[in-house]
């Protein structure tokens, strides 16, 4: 009998044209992936290839030498970056987590939506603008460029990121966990801090690290806040060197020796970022942090 419906033989009915378009698109998508991975591979390869030669003990322990003198290092820039990031985290992390708690625990209303939207907008504000604002707020008030101004600029950039990830992580904690705590007579604020936040600790820390990694390499907001410095500085009201600033000024300089050092600095910076993020990710993933589940 040939009453067998033809439509069951699907593959034979798809025309050559349609099949050709299909394979063409699949091929194009694969090519796109390749073209995206190409620069990524190239950047990392060059960082290692160019940077590894310039990173040595002197590079990690000495301050920059004047032009023409070989040697010297970026120790003060590495220290300065860490210093500025600590100032930024001290301000940005508590505020960001607080805002995240507000959004998830008290923000299921119009005002919460408004804050949520504003946080996303603040997230998209160009970093150079944040630099201008920190300049106006801190540098003009203090009278000079300073580590504090750099920290304020970076903190402003951390807050919305931390707030949004904290919110997302707290919402992952089932409502029943909260209800169980209320049922035992635990007050709301204790529940939020000791039950909800603690359950979500690993996620919240991941969010903080992402924000940290995002601002760790920022240069634009530091240009006229931290400003840079050829020497060590630990005073919060004085100009301070930063790794990213040093890379920038060395990269656009005309000296080969400085170019070499810029690659070294870039390698150190990327290692700092990648190592800190992966370490925390791994720790959080394995439940090594308190409260991780």
């Amino acid at each position, binding site marked *: 009998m040939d009453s067998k419906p033809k439509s069951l033989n699907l593959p034979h009915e798809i025309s050559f044209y*349609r099949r050709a378009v*299909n394979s063409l*698109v699949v091929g*194009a*998508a*694969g090519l*796109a*992936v390749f073209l*995206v991975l190409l*620069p990524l591979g*190239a*950047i990392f390869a*060059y*960082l290692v290839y160019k940077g590894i030669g310039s990173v040595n003990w002197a590079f990690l322990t000495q301050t920059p030498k004047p032009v023409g003198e070989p040697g010297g290092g970026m120790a003060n820039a590495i220290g300065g970056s860490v210093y500025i990031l600590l100032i930024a985290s001290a301000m940005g992390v508590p505020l*960001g987590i*607080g*805002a995240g*708690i*507000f959004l998830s*625990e*008290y923000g299921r209303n119009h005002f*919460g939506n408004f*804050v949520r939207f*504003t946080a*996303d907008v*603040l997230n*998209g*504000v*160009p*970093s*150079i*603008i944040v630099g*201008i*604002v920190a300049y106006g707020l801190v540098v003009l008030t203090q009278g000079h*460029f300073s580590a504090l101004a750099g920290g304020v600029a970076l903190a402003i950039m951390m807050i919305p990121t931390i*707030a949004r990830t904290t919110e997302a992580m707290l*919402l*992952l904690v*089932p409502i029943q966990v909260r209800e169980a705590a209320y049922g035992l*007579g635990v*007050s*709301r*604020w*204790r529940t939020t801090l000791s039950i909800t936040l603690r359950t979500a600790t690993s996620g919240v820390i991941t969010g903080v690290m992402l924000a940290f*990694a*995002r601002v760790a*390499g*920022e*240069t*634009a907001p530091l240009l*006229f806040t931290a400003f840079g410095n050829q020497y060590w500085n630990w005073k919060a009201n004085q100009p301070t060197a930063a790794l*990213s600033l040093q890379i*920038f000024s060395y*990269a*656009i300089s005309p000296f080969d020796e400085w170019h070499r050092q810029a*690659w070294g600095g*870039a390698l150190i*910076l990327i290692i700092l*970022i990648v190592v800190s*993020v992966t370490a925390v990710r791994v720790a959080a993933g394995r439940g090594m942090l308190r409260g991780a589940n």
Partner: protein
Amino acid sequence: MSNGALGAPHLPRSQPLAKPGIALVSARRQSLLRAGDSRIADQIFYYLMLACGASILALVVLIVYELITKSSLSWHAFGFKFFFASDWDPVNDKYGALPFVYGTIVSSFLSLLIAVPLAIGTAVFVTELSPRWLRTPLAFTTELLAAIPSVIYGLWAIFVLVPILRQYLQPWLAKYFGWTTLFEGPPYGIGMLAAGIILAIMILPIISSITREVMTAVSQQQREAVLALGATRWEMIRIGVLRNARAGILGGIILGLGRALGETMAVTMVIGNRPEIAKSLFAPGYTMASVIANEFSEATGDTYLSALVEVGLALFLVTIIVNSLAQVLVWSVTRGMPTRNG
């Protein structure tokens, strides 16, 4: 009043039952207990968290206030002409921002032109085509692109991308596409084209990850329905997925545009920093973000500084509008708020 144990029926109904073991308390003491229980602490905690949340609003207000007050000098001196005049002359205190506006727009759109097809192609591959085991590594690797600091992109662009452009790509473009007059002039390497390419690499991850996100949000039934009608893989993606996710994808693209507009360091390092309007993509240019980066800390004179802040204000407003538009579009597909119990 009588005490609680005997007088229980006399208590107003709304009053909570006393805790076991402390049943014999006066109403006065009960209310104190209730307050001490947590009400005040809860209130304080609420207001603290509210303050943290409101600090985000305050920051945005602060940014707007700073930018407006610090740019008023330039605004009063030049008015709207500021954005249509093309002479940037600090020596004679005359400022026109047109070359920067032009450079920002051209470099951003050039980067979108390069990045959008690649980003969507990658997202399609990762969500719909790639073998399951390859998905997470691929997604993670594209995200890695987003973790590289702008200054490192700039460094790489100066020493790797620009020489490649100068030696290979630009001569080739000039030879075969010179007739478009877009690729004229000496191939310096540094210039608008280099800025566009490095920007494209930088905005790829954001466009790609949002596209992935909205494509994943399209329900599985849509795909199955289209497949059941006899569609090929691509037809399923086109009709079942891309069409349903298009608003979100557009949002992702616009978000990428927002990034490109405000991106500073990498662009500053390769665009050439010359305030000129040239048709050729080989020519050096200047962007709004770059001029602030280069000249802000050296700006002498109040009008000069004020003019730079006004450039910043314009950049801020444009990115706000662009980003808000993008948010609305993405929210229209993914419904915004993260949901409870993921």
